[in-house]
């Protein structure tokens, strides 16, 4: 049971990372900054609960808002660059954040115990959940509640004009601009939204694992974050979720069958998937087909029309 809950925990947090990158990819921005926002959410909310004894919900909220604020700031210079340059700019941002926290030492004596981020030693003792009677089931429940809310919000975006505008910007910026869309506003909004999502993911991550250090927030994690929406396909949020399950499930479960070779096979798998389905697992046609199938199934109970 603990094992299963552990997997659910990891998948949930990674889904938030993936959804954060998904929002940005809709507008055509391939961002590796998500891990930076993730880190900000983790450290800020951790510091709030550990050093300032804040309530978890308030801490998560402020952590994600801080992440969103920095995402907003990053959004503007990010507008000036596209494609490869954006990749490099966002890599730099994430590395700056990681190195900042690597050097951050903020030790405070709380109730007789020294707590707080300890530069190279990492940030230990993020024990809010344990100290307040949360069990693993509750933690996993909270994580997935947030995941569901975010997925619902992103799904709903596609039902209203905002989603179409986001995708229009991602498809053809010149045409979008000529149709009256303010590119700056849309891209910065997407970056900010992505930052908030990653931030809350970071906060949940920090509290559920009770320990973070700079090793967690490496660029590798950022590449995972973008790989989920790319492999899952940008047509639907569900694609990202499926990709997380597929990839994380593979990595975790793969340990059993392939032992040390699973990362090797993992790399090959990605290459294979991208060659076979460059548009991602869930592409437009598949989504359209599934929708038609669902429509037919729900009508199936009634008499033939």
């Amino acid at each position: 049971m603990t094992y299963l809950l552990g997997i659910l925990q990891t998948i949930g947090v990674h889904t938030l990372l993936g959804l954060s990158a998904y929002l940005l990819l809709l507008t055509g921005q391939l961002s590796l900054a998500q891990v930076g926002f993730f880190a900000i959410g983790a450290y800020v909310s951790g510091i709030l609960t550990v050093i300032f004894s804040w309530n978890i919900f308030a801490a998560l909220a402020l952590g994600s808002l801080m992440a969103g604020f920095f995402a907003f700031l990053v959004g503007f210079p990010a507008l000036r660059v596209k494609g490869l340059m954006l990749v490099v700019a966002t890599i730099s941002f994430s590395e700056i954040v990681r190195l900042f926290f690597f050097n951050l030492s903020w030790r405070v004596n709380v109730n007789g115990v020294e707590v707080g981020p300890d530069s190279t030693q990492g940030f230990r003792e993020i024990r809010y959940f344990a100290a307040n009677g949360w069990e693993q089931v509750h933690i996993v429940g909270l994580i997935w509640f947030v995941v569901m809310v975010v997925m619902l919000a992103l799904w709903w975006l596609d039902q209203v004009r905002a989603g179409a505008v986001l995708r229009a910007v991602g498809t053809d910026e010149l045409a979008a601009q000529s149709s009256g869309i303010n590119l700056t506003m849309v891209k910065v909004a997407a970056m900010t939204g992505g930052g908030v999502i990653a931030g809350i993911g970071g906060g949940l991550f920090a509290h559920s694992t009770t320990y973070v250090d700079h090793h967690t927030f490496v660029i590798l994690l950022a590449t995972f974050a973008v790989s989920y929406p790319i492999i899952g396909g940008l047509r639907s949020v569900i694609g990202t979720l499926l990709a997380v399950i597929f990839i994380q499930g593979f990595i975790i479960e793969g340990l059993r069958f392939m032992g040390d070779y699973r990362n090797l096979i993992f790399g090959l798998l990605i290459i294979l998937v991208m060659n076979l389905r460059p548009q991602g697992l869930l592409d437009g046609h598949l989504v359209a087909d599934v929708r038609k199938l669902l429509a037919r199934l729900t009508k199936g109970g009634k008499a033939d029309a």
Partner: protein
Amino acid sequence: MNFDYIDIIQSLIDGVLFGSIYALIGLGFTLIFGAMHKLNLAYAASSIAGAYTGLMSLTIFGLPPLMAFIIGPVMSGAIGLVLYFACFRFMPRGNHLAPLMASIGALFFIDEVIIHETSGSPMSFPAILPDAYFFLGEFGIRGDLLLVMGFSFILMAIVMLLLYRTKLGLGTRATSQQPVAALLCGIPIHRTNSATFILAGVLGGFAGCLLAASVGVLSPLLTLPLTVKGLIVTVIGGLGSIRGAIVAGFAVGAAESIFLLVRGVNERDIYVFLLLFLFLVLRPNGLFGTTINRD
């Protein structure tokens, strides 16, 4: 902390010498990006992997150390060709995300292979002229770094020659500017791109070997920092600009060295990245890049 100008200039000298390696990697990234307008994130890893094969062939075949510097680049070229077929050859032309993702997969794969074959521990790499140390007035110059830099210049000159004086180079430049038109003119795009990947691979292999020779060890931990530095150099130099990559390589090497002197090893990279960020905000085209095209 006080630094007098001697420390600063010494630091600059070391940085510029080392920067030639970054210039080579940046050049390789630029060649590939210039040809296909797509990014090969596995490039630095394949360069290091080539250096590893060079190193390990010494023990397997009992060869003199010099052979590592030949086998390494050749193997990197071969790996580059394989990467082209695995990640780029069969992708739809307009799709940029899929090849990028595939190259990330390749990066994971190559890293894991290296870790497996070496059990994760660093291996010592033959140094070139380890005891050579010259003095120019009050400044010390590492002889081996000087050789590295000289060698890098030779390599860059060869690449420029290939690009601008041969039919292959012409084909590469034509394909990069107008792939469909190039195809219609009878330029074999896939062969041209394959050749570009091989060339970039060989270049990277030299960079990997030279890097290993300069620091004395080869370690899987080198791949990610080298990838990032290479990308930074490519971007600061201006996308697709050969001259830019070269100049930027030296500039980044020098900057890194100064930051190391002034802020220490823990914070050095923060400033390198801040420099990059600043650059992108103020001069998004890089040093020599052409204006970013509209669709």
